[in-house]
Every structure is written in C-alpha cells, then in structure tokens.
C-alpha cells in the first residue's frame, strides 16, 4: 500500500483489525488440528505411496468385465438392494408403533384432566429416549457388533438398518404427525373413538404424502448404507469393493463404482416416480 493510499480514509479497510484477529486465531486453531489429524500432505508425493496409487489409478481402465466377475457383481448388487429393502421394511415395522406412542396429538389424556396424564408423559419420554439411543449409534457400528456377535453376513446389515432406521423413521414420523393439524384427530378422540381410528381418519389423510416421501427417501439412504456396511463383512457391494481394494484389483473397483453410481441414480429415479404417483 502506498503512502498516499494509506492516508486516504475512504480506502482504508474499516475492519482490518478484526480481519487480522480472525486470521491469527484461525491459524492458532488450525495448527493443533493439523497435528492431531497428522496432516502431512507430503506423504502423498512420497515415491512409494505415489507409485502404488498411480498403478492403482492406471488399473481403473478398463473396468473388469469378465463373465465370472459380472455374475458376482450382479449377485452383490441384488444383495445390497435386498439388504436395504428388508432393512427399511423391518425399520418401518419398528417405527410405526413407536411413532404412534410418541405422538402427542393422539394422547387421550391430553384432552383434559385425566388420571393417565402423568403416565402418558413418562411413556412418551421413554419412547423418545429409546429412539434417540437407537439412532445415535451409526448403523455400521451396529452391523459390526452383529457380525462379531453372531458371524451373520447380510442379516447383520438388515438388523443394523432396522435398528437405526427404526429410530430415525419413528422420530420423523412423530414429528410429521405432530406438525399436521391436530384438530380432526382431537375431535375424533373427544367423540370417543380409539387412538388407531383417530390416527387413520384424523391424522393420516393430512400427513400421508409426507410420510411416504420420507420413507422413500430413507430407502434411498439405506442403499448407500447397505453398500458401506459391506466393508465390515455384511455382504453386498461393499464387501466386493473391500476385497477388490485389498486384493489390489483396480479394474474391479472401477466396475463396482460404476454399478454403484447406476444404483444411486436408479434409486433416485424410482423414488421420484413413487413420490409422483403417491404425492
């Protein structure tokens, strides 16, 4: 900056000091961060590592396409889809009763002074805690535990999805149901109908569309999750990628990645159609 500019107040940055302070504190914070994460970009250029990676990347083309591998790939793809679908189906079965229990709009005690008021609140809180705990451990950790506990293959993936997605679906179902206008359901309850009838005729007509589209979205996520869970031995595409990377067969890695890309696009297309038809 030249002398003349420095003297002209309109060219001086009015928050220069604040910017400097931010920059310094960012560097001070980043330093230990880099140390903790062992940030050493130089290892990427290390001839040994770079050579290994270079060979691997060069091997991506052409993608592996021999008949035996393709058969294995098809099997793994179907398995991944089946894990995701079965997992979400079980999660749905778990989530529906939890969501109904947790929804305040369906509380009969909330209508007015009643004996069960306190009990209902405790029950709802308990159900919510269960949902949070089921959700807060990632599905792949559940899968790892199941694999280690019982040596299950794909079934571990299904159970893991059922638990985490059960918690997630229940939480969001309850939120959607509570966001809907509670008056029809309340009117039905006040007229003496049961909770299930109030749900079916009072709440569902208002919330069905959103419930369906969220479920379909979760199925889409479940496909990704099912791929990832293969890495710890729960079958499907993930297990195939893991084997291909560890066995150093880059052509197979690229074939599997292409299938994975196609699968994600297919799931997006299917959920688009489903939402259109049902929405």
């Amino acid at each position, binding site marked *: 900056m030249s002398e003349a500019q420095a003297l002209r107040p309109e060219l001086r940055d009015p928050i220069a000091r604040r910017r400097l302070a931010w920059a310094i504190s960012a560097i001070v914070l980043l330093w*230990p*961060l880099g140390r903790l994460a062992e940030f050493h970009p130089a290892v990427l250029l290390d001839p040994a*590592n770079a050579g290994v*990676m270079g060979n691997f990347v060069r091997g991506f083309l052409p993608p592996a396409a021999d008949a035996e591998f393709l058969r294995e790939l098809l099997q793994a793809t179907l398995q991944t889809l089946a894990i995701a679908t079965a997992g979400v189906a079980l999660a749905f079965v778990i989530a529906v009763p939890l969501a109904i229990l947790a929804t305040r709009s369906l509380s009969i005690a909330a209508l007015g002074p009643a004996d069960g008021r306190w009990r209902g609140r405790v029950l709802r809180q308990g159900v919510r805690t269960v949902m949070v705990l089921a959700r807060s451990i990632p599905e792949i*950790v559940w899968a790892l535990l199941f694999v280690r506990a019982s040596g299950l293959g794909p079934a571990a993936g299904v159970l893991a999805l059922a638990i985490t997605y059960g918690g997630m679906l229940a939480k969001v179902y309850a939120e959607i149901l509570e966001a809907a206008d509670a008056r029809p359901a309340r009117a039905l309850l006040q007229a003496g109908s049961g909770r299930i009838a109030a749900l079916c005729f009072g709440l569902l007509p208002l919330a069905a569309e959103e419930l369906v589209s969220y479920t379909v979205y979760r199925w889409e996520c479940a496909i990704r999750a099912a791929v990832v869970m293969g890495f710890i031995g729960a079958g499907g595409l993930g297990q195939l990628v893991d084997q291909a990377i560890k066995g150093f067969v880059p052509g197979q890695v690229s074939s599997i990645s292409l299938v994975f*890309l196609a699968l994600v696009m297919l799931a997006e297309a299917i959920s688009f159609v489903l939402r259109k038809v049902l929405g």
Partner: protein
Amino acid sequence: MSVHRGRRAAGLACLAVTGLAVIASFGFLAVDFGGLFEAQARHRMASFVVEFFPPDVSPAFLRQVGFASLQTLAVSLLGTLIAAVAGGLLALPAAGRFGRLPKWAARSMLNGLRSVPELVWASLMVLAAGLGPFAGALALALHTTGVLGRLFAESLENASPVPETALRDLGAGPVARFLYGTLPLIAPQCLGYVLYRWEMNIRMATILGFVGAGGLGQMLYFHLSLFQQQQAATVLIAMTLLVLADDALSGRARRALSAQTH
C-alpha cells in the same frame, strides 16, 4: 371421479410392488430369523452383551479414548475445511462463470467425487497416504468437496446478479465484482452448508477408522478384533456422547445462524 380412481389404482399398484419387493428381499437373503431367536443363538448373544460390562474406565484408557475423540473431531474439521476451500474453487466454474466447457468439466468432477461413499474413499486413501487419520481427513475432504461444490454452485447461480452488474457499471474488475457483489450475498448460506456438512462429517469420522483411518473407529475395530469388549464398550460410549453432543450443538448453532440471517 375417474382421476380419483386412477390415482387409487396407481397407489395400490405401488403398494403391491413394494410388498413384493420386500418379500423378494427377505427371500433372496434367506435370513434365518427364526434361528436368531433360538436358545443357543440367544445365549451366545446374551453372553456377548454381558462381556461389554463393565466398560473400561481406567484413567490410562480414558486418556486414549479422549485422544481418539479429539482426533476424530480434528479429522472431521480438517476434512470439512479442505472441502469448503476446494468446493468453493470448483463451484465458480461449475456455476458457469468461465463458459460451457469448464462448467461441464467441473460438474462431472463434483458428481464423481460425491457419488463415491466416504468409506470407499477412505480405503483408497489408506493406499495413497498410509494408515492413519490423514487418510480419513482426505477421504472426507474428497466426498464433501463434491457435495459442497454443488451446493455452492447452486447458491451462486441463484444469487441476484444486480450487485455485480452495478459494480461492473462502476468499473470494478471481475475479482472485486465477485468479492464485493456476490460473495456477501451467498456467504451466510454457504456457511450454513459447511456447518451442516461438518455435523455429518463428525458422525462419519467416527466410523472411518474401520478401514484404518484413525480416530474412535479404529480403536473400536481394534478392540473388537482382539475380543476386548470392555474397552470396546468405552469407545462405544464415547462415540454415542460425541454424536449426541454434535446433534444438540448443531441444532443450536443452526438456529442461531438462521436467526442472524433472517
């Protein structure tokens, strides 16, 4: 009326297809769910669960877990920061600021980065950078660059062009036009996206260690492999606490941010 009936038929068809898909899935996997609940399997499962108690809370081990938790946080933050910078750089061409060809190239690159799951990136990065947290940070950075780049590009495209046109008419250069015209408009939204991805990356960083990329995941995998269930239990508790804290704080941060921008 016939429209109604058509919709109803379509809905029933969807329901039927879904039902068939679910039955086919269970059939294909041929999971013996009955066997899971047989006495022997139940017994094995129960004894496995019992082995987790009591969790190892010796000070030395807690220190290790604390270090791994910090490392997990550092990996997630570093990965997200690298991704924010790289995503920002790629978003400019992806929003079509440098013409058609760069736009297409940047978009395909972002799509490619995004479509590979973090764990696959992580096991590739373990090849490229060796075992350890750096591989995890790189893996998060690669996937998140794809996600953030696309989100940034969308905000750029949706931002009002008026400030930039005004600056251009005043004779400002392209860099100044972007920095003072468009960037302030999209900065809060982009910051929101970065925070949101950071939140997701904290969860992700806890499990990247399964393929050898450091942090809590690596510890969990290690101790479970050695059948040290009590140590594994402590790591699991740390993971849960990290995720719960992440949930609580991110919700609060997002509310504060949206209160500031609206």
